């Protein structure tokens, strides 16, 4: 108990908890669209690719977070415009774009001092300052409000693009909005868990929620609850066990996912 009191009075830990919760909340909400559209690996690839943006930003002396956001948005828009068709399948084109961008990020960040590459890959929750917390929280609130305001349209396009088009709800416009929201989200969440592990927050809570609920609208709040809980538990465990916070959050997510799916299957057999 004493230990927990000490833990929660440490400003570094409190800031880490706040950013982890905000990142998890954002991932959990936006991730519902990622899972429903079946683009979990695109979200993963986008977070890896954002390394290039962070690398370019450091080279030009601007905050890496903004570089990563800008590059991820540019990549999302580019992917939306490329669309399907052609002789090369879309997944092959995405793989080339994502691994190419990641390689650029590796090369640029490896030349930077101060563990920039390690921080980007695995997250850097504990050294965050108050300004970081405020900036990340403000961006997250703005994004959550926008996504909530357009929920009807985004859900229709995610569930049935053809019907959306017939009724005059533009699929290309709302898919672009969704892709930009995903790009912002993966970059913000990368700050907490790192680019290698961000898809654990983006995919695991929504996947559990979508199995647990009877309607997709309920999935947002259930996913948010699971996401925030696993990230807070992950940060506390990482401090207790002296393990990397990002990896610990991803590990807690994976354990929760395995337990939930096993319980769900067991329940299914009994009924």
């Amino acid at each position: 108990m004493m230990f927990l009191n000490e833990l929660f009075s440490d400003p570094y830990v409190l800031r880490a908890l706040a950013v982890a919760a905000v990142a998890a909340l954002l991932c959990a909400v936006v991730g519902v669209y990622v899972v429903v559209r079946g683009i979990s690996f695109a979200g993963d690839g986008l977070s890896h690719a954002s390394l290039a943006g962070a690398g370019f930003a450091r080279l030009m002396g601007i905050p890496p977070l903004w570089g990563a956001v800008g590059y991820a948005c540019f990549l999302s828009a580019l992917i939306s415009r490329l669309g399907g068709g052609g002789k090369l399948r879309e997944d092959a084109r995405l793989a080339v774009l994502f691994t190419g961008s990641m390689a650029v990020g590796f090369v640029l960040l490896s030349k930077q001092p101060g563990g920039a590459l390690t921080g980007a890959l695995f997250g850097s929750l504990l050294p965050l300052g108050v300004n970081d917390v405020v900036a990340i929280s403000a961006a997250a609130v703005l994004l959550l409000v926008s996504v909530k305001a357009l929920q009807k349209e985004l859900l229709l396009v995610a569930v049935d693009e053809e019907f959306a088009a017939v009724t005059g709800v533009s699929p290309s416009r709302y898919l672009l909005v969704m892709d930009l929201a995903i790009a912002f989200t993966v970059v913000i969440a990368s700050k907490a868990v790192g680019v290698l592990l961000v898809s654990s927050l983006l995919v695991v809570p929504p996947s559990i929620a979508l199995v647990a609920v009877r309607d997709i609208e309920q999935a947002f709040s259930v996913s948010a609850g699971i996401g925030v809980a696993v990230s807070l538990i992950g940060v506390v465990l990482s401090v207790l066990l002296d393990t990397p916070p990002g990896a610990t959050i991803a590990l807690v997510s994976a354990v929760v996912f395995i337990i939930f799916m096993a319980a769900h299957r067991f329940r299914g057999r009994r009924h």
Partner: protein
Amino acid sequence: MRAQGIAVECRDVSVRRQGKDILERISFALEPGSLTLLFGPNGGGKSTLLKVLVGLEKAESGELLIDKKPLELARNLVGYVPQRVIAQPHIPLSVSHAVLMGLTALRGPFQRWNNEDHRRVSIALDEVELGGRELDDIRSLSGGELQRVYIARALVREPRLLLLDEATSGIDVGVKSSILSLVERLKERMTILFVTHDMSVVSEAVDEVLCLQRTLVAHGRPSEALSAESMAVMYGSEAQPFMHCHLPHRHVHSGGCG
């Protein structure tokens, strides 16, 4: 006053894809409040014509007027029931939410569902005999029930032109009959175009038949349009319609036509 159906006019519509003619100079008019079958073999261009009518495909040439307006100005008057509806196994969606989605474009961004929207959903579900099933997950429904949910999603928009693409394919005879009865009832307040390759859906409620095989092979009353000649053009010289009481009848019964 109850809403009435609207007129549709299609003039010289042609569609080409990769240098191949899919539809060639299709012209027809649908009378307000009529029930018309768009009939033809698989690959004959029925779905393409329907896609042109709902704006999913652009015609290379020709003109389409719905209620004397281009589609862009008449979109809210059109209800559409797609072919082969299936519930996606990874998406939980309640019956009421699936139907509410039909109202998305009418409400516009930044607006939430209101009581009027929920009232319209209830009415649409009652109409397709799914009242009381609002909270069911659509993944638990049978093929026929799911088809009725998608018809309700089109009806909730209170359309004055209803376009159904193979709405009775792959469902059992009893459900098919109930969907056809529903379509016949809806005719009182909307114009209906029913795309099918199944001749058993022809009934006395059908006003006209459009026979399509890349070009419009025949257009008229069922007994005229579904002639041996038009069947031969669509299906080859061996094909003959099964005529019953001057109509290719959908109900098989032992007595006379009475």
